[in-house]
């Protein structure tokens, strides 16, 4: 049981506290409810570029990193389609430094042309490093575009093209900041070796005076239901043919989310899982295979991906995956479900051992609606039944709702 307590400041900032007396650290996590899904389709990758700019200093702190490091701390941040998360860990006696730096950049971020120019270049290098100069690096660009017709999940966090990043101008940065980086759009979690009363008092002291500006209401996007299977084929300089089959899935708030996660583990969690046992080991069709969910707030994705063995025709490998998906609907035992639940249970218990990981997780659950949700995961997975699994498979994992990407090895006569 992870103890959390919560308070909302007058300016709308949600503050959550979690005590751990056994660590010498305090972790400060600030989550802003803005991600790639809030971007202009002509400026994709902007939320992530903005994350970089948050480290360029603020009015009363020329640098964000330096004082924090001088206090013995470390920090980082990440952006995804739904939210942007900043976290820092400092020795407990230096908690004030961390709160001061977070409050100052929430209120007075230093936005300037020079920083923007440099960070645009850095992000373009990041884009190249992870998405261009890697075998299969653009898979997510291709898959998202197939799976989503309207929803802004159709582009990845890094952005659609490097031009979207390099063309960003200062005015857009300012607007983005005032539209999204407001206290009522943020969650502050203070976790670690600090008493509850002290944590709330300091939160009030550093953040309480920030007056909020209006945050633009988010428009809801209606994503049409898919009725016809889609396929796409690309050729690239890759050593093995890749097969990706993706389906739209449920949102993170639905009980079916837990069903979908359990299914992905039945398929590929551990060495005894179905896809690994049958398609890699017994039939030797794939070199590696994996099933997973994207765990987005809204319409998620359920993906099966594999690298096909050199001498196996793609169609044979694909048929085998479909056979496994069909078998889920007809052949599933209580014992297999129990096994998968035990694995998840173990994962949940081992995953929150560090104070940093735990604090980041608490912020995530608070974003979903309630920090205490972190304590309810076990029972939600436990409530998954065989019937629910089969219902999910019949509803979501059908051929007409599939998106298949063939990522194929360029043959010599196709090479340039």
């Amino acid at each position, binding site marked *: 049981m992870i103890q959390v307590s919560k308070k909302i400041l007058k300016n709308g900032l949600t503050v959550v506290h979690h005590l751990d007396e056994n660590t*010498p650290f305090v972790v400060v996590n600030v989550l802003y409810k803005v991600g790639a899904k809030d971007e202009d389709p002509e400026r994709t990758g902007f939320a992530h570029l903005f994350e970089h700019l948050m480290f360029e200093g603020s009015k009363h702190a020329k640098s964000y990193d330096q004082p924090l490091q001088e206090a013995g701390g470390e920090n980082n941040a990440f952006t995804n389609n739904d939210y942007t998360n900043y976290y820092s860990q400092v020795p407990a006696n230096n908690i004030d*430094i961390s709160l001061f730096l977070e409050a100052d950049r929430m209120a007075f971020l230093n936005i300037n042309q020079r920083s923007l120019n*440099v960070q645009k270049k*850095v992000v373009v290098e990041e884009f190249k490093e992870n998405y261009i100069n890697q075998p299969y690096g653009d898979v997510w660009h291709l898959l998202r575009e197939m799976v989503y017709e309207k929803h802004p999940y159709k582009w990845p966090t890094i952005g659609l093209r490097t031009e979207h990043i390099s063309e960003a101008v200062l005015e857009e940065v300012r607007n983005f900041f005032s539209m999204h980086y407001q206290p009522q759009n943020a969650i502050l979690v203070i976790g670690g070796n600090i008493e509850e009363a002290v944590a709330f008092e300091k939160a009030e002291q550093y953040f309480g005076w920030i007056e909020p500006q209006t945050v633009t209401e988010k428009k809801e996007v209606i994503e049409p239901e898919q009725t016809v299977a889609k396929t796409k084929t690309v050729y690239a300089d890759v*050593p093995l043919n890749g097969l990706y089959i993706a389906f739209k899935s449920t949102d993170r708030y639905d009980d079916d989310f837990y069903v979908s996660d359990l299914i992905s583990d039945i398929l590929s969690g551990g060495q005894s899982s179905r896809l690994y046992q049958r398609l890699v080991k017994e039939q030797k069709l794939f070199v590696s295979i994996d099933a997973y969910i994207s765990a987005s707030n809204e319409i998620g994705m359920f993906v099966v991906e594999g690298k096909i063995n050199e001498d196996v025709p793609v169609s044979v490998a694909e048929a085998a995956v479909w056979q496994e998906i069909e078998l889920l609907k007809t052949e599933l035992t209580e014992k297999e479900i129990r096994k998968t639940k035990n694995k998840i249970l173990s994962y949940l218990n081992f995953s929150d051992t560090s104070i940093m990981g735990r604090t980041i997780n608490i912020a995530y659950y608070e974003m979903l609606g309630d920090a205490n949700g972190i304590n309810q995961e076990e029972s939600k997975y436990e409530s998954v039944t065989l019937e629910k699994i089969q219902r999910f498979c019949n509803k979501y994992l059908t051929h007409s709702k599939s998106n298949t990407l063939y990522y194929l090895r360029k043959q010599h006569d196709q090479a340039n």
Partner: protein
Amino acid sequence: MTKLIDLKAPPILEIGKITLPEPKKITLDNGIPMFVFQGAKNDILCVELLFNSGRWTEPSPLTAGSCGRLIKSGTLNKSSFELSEEIDFYGSTIKAGAGYNTFSLQLFTLHRFFNESFPLFQECLFDIAFPETEIDLYKSNALSKHRVELEKNDYVADMAFKKIVFGDQHPYGYETSEERIKAINQTDILEYYRKELRIDNCAIFVSGNVLETHIQAINNLLGKKDWNKSSTGLPVSTAPPSGTIPQQFHQQKKNSVQCSIVIGKQLFNMSHEDYPEFLLMNTIFGGYFGSRLMSNIREDKGYTYGIYSGLQSLKFGGVYSIQTETGLEHKNDCLKEIYTEMSRLRESRVTERELTLARNYLLGKFMGKTDGAFNQVEQFKKYYVEGKSVDLFDNIVEKVRNCNAERIRDLATTYLNKENFSEIVIG
């Protein structure tokens, strides 16, 4: 509108005492030392058997690693599937892996499944048969994955670097090649398994929420006098490390938009007297986000997403390197700036402010290594493997606290000279 308020930066307080606690030591009936690291909120447990083995003592290249990867490949009575199915059923994880000088076998389990999981763990230690069919499949998949890895510049660069620095026959340096993967065989793996996973070669580390019943069970199951394994080990590698002469290795790769850079050389391990202060010097140079390399090459010039340098302490020696990925159009500028930063650190003293910043950052990192049972065990093992006590950790911390700017410059003068470094560029 935001109210105008004059926020003041709070004072930075000194980082208090940092010490790595001694674990509780128990000796099993057969003499195996067992170290217990107590502390976890949840009812979880990790048992690790660490053998003084690894690449350093393997009959042929890649054998130790393959033995680890195939640790659940089946016994005489149980297929690989049956074994994995049982382990998975209890939600437990069994992992094995070889390092340069270690071979590790780990069990992660919940309390409630300890009694069922531990015998399976024991089977992995005593009864694995390494069937030919499993080895063949492992090899064929390893070969395919290797071909995918070869498409990644950083993988190729790192492999080329280790080969240049230690030589292709040396356990720290040899390349993973198609020929070597194809040569993996059952005889060698079995020989390694029988001769290297021995009582007199083993230490046990237990961490998490450890109960007395767990300790007793471990002693009952692993403390018996005879493990029925070979009584002697394999000969240790005799290949001398090459690489005293720095080399340049540049390889272009079709369709690359970036190249991978590794600049490095052989150096020392944590037993060396310069080690603690070298860590601090390296922090300033390229060891953290605020380092000179990062500030100049990423934050000022935008040539890269990241650039880091680090010293890897090995049981016999060490290796120091600077690594980055940069756009092809920035390659020459990036290389030039790396060497410029080396000479800057040699030629002028760092300011007190920069020194304090890096020192405190490093002290915070040290503090992190003492935070909780799982961090402590990881740290303790590093010292244990190199035959050192935890006192060395405390000494390193003290030396870092007391290091001055003069000393940083001296170390840079001794260790950061372009002509001693090999340079690898792939892409």
